[in-house]
């Protein structure tokens, strides 16, 4: 990570190279300004949530919005608390989360591996790309959620059908990014590696893959979310356990607080996973200049 004074925009005042002491003062002032800005952002963020939830609560309390359709923040908190303390209709809450996470992570890993391998293969081989390109595009244009029903018929109500749906959702995102990443590799870098003596295999491992890695990792941010969607939709369509099933159950019993409660749990899981992908990104592409610094979205 860079020291904070490099992240903030440089001060407009012309800086005299000789005045080292002034530089130190500047650096300290900029560090303070940076910390101040971070604090303000945090406060603003929390305020947005507070205002939103308060408005929701008040509108439903005053019966301007119907609790039956919109739920109620206090009811949602109660619902989550009941799940935590007394468990859900399908068993303990942590068990539902664990099941959904297991499906998500398995689907994510299988989809990423398939996407990267096929993306690099087709990106490297023009003939393969030209033959299979139209089929992959056709498959991609199909709404994949409808596959969920077929997967339940094929693989049953258990884990495999959810993993399969997560895989097809993840695969295309990663595949197209890996493919594009390979296509965008600087021709000069490939020429340089070849002249330096690299075999085609070394060109792939030492130039193509590292170069495509920033594309591939960018796709991991979205594709983990897709894996979660795949698992939850799969559960929603038919399952024995999982957060998706909790949503389906809540919906069938006309319990909007249950739907929103499960959604909040999902959002928390997704945010944690996102932080994990960002940490992985920082480890894998350390060589890249830090252009994006304090924009955490």
């Amino acid at each position, binding site marked *: 990570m860079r020291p904070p004074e490099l992240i903030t925009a440089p001060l407009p005042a012309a800086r005299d190279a000789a005045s080292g002491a002034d530089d130190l003062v500047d650096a300290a002032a900029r560090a303070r300004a940076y910390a101040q800005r971070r604090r303000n952002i945090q406060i603003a963020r929390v305020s947005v949530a507070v205002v939103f939830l308060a408005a929701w609560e008040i509108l439903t309390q005053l019966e301007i919005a119907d609790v039956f359709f919109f739920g109620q923040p206090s009811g949602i908190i109660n619902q989550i608390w009941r799940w935590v303390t007394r468990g859900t209709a399908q068993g303990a809450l942590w068990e539902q989360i664990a099941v959904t996470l297991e499906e998500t992570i398995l689907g994510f890993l299988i989809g990423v591996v398939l996407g990267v391998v096929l993306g690099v293969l087709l990106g490297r081989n023009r003939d393969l790309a030209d033959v299979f390109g139209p089929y992959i595009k056709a498959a991609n244009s199909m709404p994949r959620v409808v596959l969920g029903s077929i997967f339940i018929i094929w693989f049953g109500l258990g884990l495999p059908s959810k993993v399969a749906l997560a895989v097809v959702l993840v695969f295309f995102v990663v595949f197209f990014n890996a493919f594009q990443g390979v296509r965008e590799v*600087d021709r*000069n*870098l490939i*020429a*340089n*590696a*070849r*002249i*330096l*003596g*690299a*075999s085609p295999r*070394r060109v792939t491992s*030492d*130039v193509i893959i*590292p*170069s495509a*890695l920033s594309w591939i990792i960018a796709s991991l941010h979205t594709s983990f979310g897709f894996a979660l969607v795949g698992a939850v939709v799969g559960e929603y369509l038919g399952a024995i356990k999982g957060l998706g099933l909790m949503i389906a159950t809540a919906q069938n019993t006309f319990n909007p607080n249950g739907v929103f409660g499960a959604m909040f749990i999902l959002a928390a899981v997704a945010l944690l996973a996102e932080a994990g992908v960002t940490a992985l990104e920082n480890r894998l*592409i*350390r*060589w*890249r*200049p830090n252009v994006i610094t304090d924009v955490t979205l």
Partner: protein
Amino acid sequence: MVVSGGTPSIELRGVYKRFATPTGAPFTALRDLTLSVRQGEFCAIVGPTGCGKSTTLALISGLEPPSAGRVEVLGRPVTGIVPETGYVFQTDAVFPWKSVLDNVAAGPLFRGVARSAARARAKDWIQRVGLAGFEHHYPHQLSGGMRKRVALAQTLINNPRVILMDEPFSALDVQTRTLMENELLALWSATSASVVFVTHDLEEAIALADRVVVLTAGPATIKGIYSVDLPRPRNVAEVRFDPRFADIYQEIWADLREEVLVSYERNKRNAAA
């Protein structure tokens, strides 16, 4: 000192190079090009922008095959990448995800040298190009001049007998450029390698080379070949004030000017069309 000895290390005979443009129409980059570079000679190629100078290097290195004619390096016809060549590219071609040390060690590693031996050699070359202490930096942490030094070390570590350079210093500021040119001459003089140095800067060509080849506006062929009989070792910053330098410059410029004008008019017409 004009390098003596007759054995050619690079020979191009009646070489043509045509490319298919995206519309399918053929584009001729090189036309009946014949050129021979002696062992240990420093040969500069000048010509108007886009005339096919880089294409010539791509043919010699084996990156591209000629459409017609013969290309020979070290007495053997070129059929693929020639292992004895080194190539310094115009734009940055060092690997941004490798540290300086791994960048310089890349050549030997690709060629099957053991990791420890490759790293030891790389350390030595990093020292020689004046980058000691920067072994673990990544390219984006270095200045343009320093990245060029990495590129030079990366190329020279393979002990190439033919060094191809495609406007390697054109992106550098004038001071850094002069520094790098002197450094290149020093490094080259310690080898017996032949150099083909492509540039659009006539001053640079004369200051560095034993011979300057002028190409015509595309499709490129040889317009003229001039010997540069300035004494070596040369200091690039000072050799420009040699009265002989001015004479040579004038002689070559008369030739080059015509081609630059042809190319300029053509570009203007294309832009207007």
